[in-house]
């Protein structure tokens, strides 16, 4: 790692002030520190967000589940509130990486990083979450802009993420056997604003599978999407899977997610 300074402020305002143009926020460090170890980035300073009380905690109120940005994956997976309100989200969190990664990695870090294979983006899109930052609120659907690209401005801090509680939802991924990242992951949610299907791992960033949504709106069952094709155009090809295989996996994971939602 190159040298850097380190600071752990205790308020969001101080954190924003401490971050210079070349600095990085540090959450769980599960993505940032491996990146620094490979010398793929050279921040002058790390601003550790772990001292910010506003970024902590899980709460349920008025049909919405809210998760602080610094909440680690293990806490989401084990939370009685999450399991009761949106069990599919607890399932999703319990499948991220491995136990050690889940004890450190955070929801805020995961969505700010916007890895194309990360799990949480499928839920942010499918559940129509709201991302609360230190400056504004962003709609989940507009949050992911491309490969590792989000609507966040430089220096903007994710404070919390709120998820409207759906009638039912399911998540299923085809994990990379080494890293457990989603080769393809699909969340299917039956929500107040209709059926929504969020896909991660397949494209440059999470997106909605609208043809599947239309079919599921008429008939919420795995059979309803049996003949809905997912075009391979624009999907990712890498050493793990071709675009065609990913397109195929979207259908398979969606069917399993529907079964889980109905389960």
């Amino acid at each position, binding site marked *: 790692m190159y040298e850097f300074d380190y600071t752990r402020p205790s308020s969001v305002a101080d954190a924003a002030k401490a971050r210079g143009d070349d600095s990085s926020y540090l959450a769980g*460090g599960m993505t940032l520190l*491996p990146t620094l170890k490979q010398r793929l980035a050279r921040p002058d300073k790390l601003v550790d967000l772990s001292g910010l009380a506003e970024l902590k905690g899980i709460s349920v109120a008025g049909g919405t589940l809210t998760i602080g940005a610094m909440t680690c994956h293990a806490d989401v997976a084990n939370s009685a509130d999450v399991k009761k309100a949106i069990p599919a989200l607890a399932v999703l969190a319990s499948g991220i990486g491995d136990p050690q990664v889940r004890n450190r990695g955070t929801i805020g870090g995961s969505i700010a990083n916007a890895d194309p294979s990360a799990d949480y983006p499928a839920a942010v899109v499918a559940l129509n979450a709201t991302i609360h930052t230190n400056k504004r609120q962003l709609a989940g659907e507009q949050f992911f802009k491309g490969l590792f690209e989000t609507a966040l401005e430089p220096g903007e801090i994710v404070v919390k993420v709120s998820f409207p509680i759906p009638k039912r939802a399911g998540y299923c991924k085809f994990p990379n056997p080494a890293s457990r990242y989603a080769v393809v992951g699909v969340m299917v949610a039956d929500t107040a604003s209709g059926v929504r299907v969020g896909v991660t791992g397949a494209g440059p960033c999470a997106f909605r599978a609208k043809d599947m949504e239309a079919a599921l709106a008429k008939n919420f069952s795995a059979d309803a999407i049996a003949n809905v094709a997912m075009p391979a155009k624009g999907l990712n090809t890498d050493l793990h899977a071709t675009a065609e295989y990913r397109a195929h996996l979207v259908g398979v994971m969606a069917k399993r997610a529907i079964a889980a939602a109905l389960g």
Partner: protein
Amino acid sequence: MAKVSITVNGKPQSAEVEPRTLLVEFLRYKLNLTGTHVGCDTSQCGACTVHLDGKPVKSCTMLAVQAEGRNVTTIEGVATGDQLHPVQAAFRECHGLQCGFCTPGMVMSALGIIERHKGGAIDEKTVRHELEGNICRCTGYQGIVNAVLLAAKNMGLKVA
């Protein structure tokens, strides 16, 4: 440089470190606790697993300064004097190791698994899923899984 104070295996320790010093480097080079291993540079192998306030974490993917004020337990803190911890004894009994390089991390992860299911039941599938953060190049895992299940049983969990 930054001053860090961390309680390691029950003993308060302080040192001047660079902010970029990893927790594993602090443990191995400042405290000479070389039981914690480094097996990769991609945060995947788990050989560096220690407990931070009782929970398994990868000490190669944490800065020492992030552990300021916290409790860290390493493999050196597991046995009581010459008496092996039931998890260590089970690894010996079940041939849960060959070269031993992954073993400190495996034991720390096994302790985490048993802690998470304390007072309840555990099965082989759960053990395999929760060992996903630890890689072993020698054993083929069967002996390790058997060791975790035996230790769990000896520590009062129901083994299904």
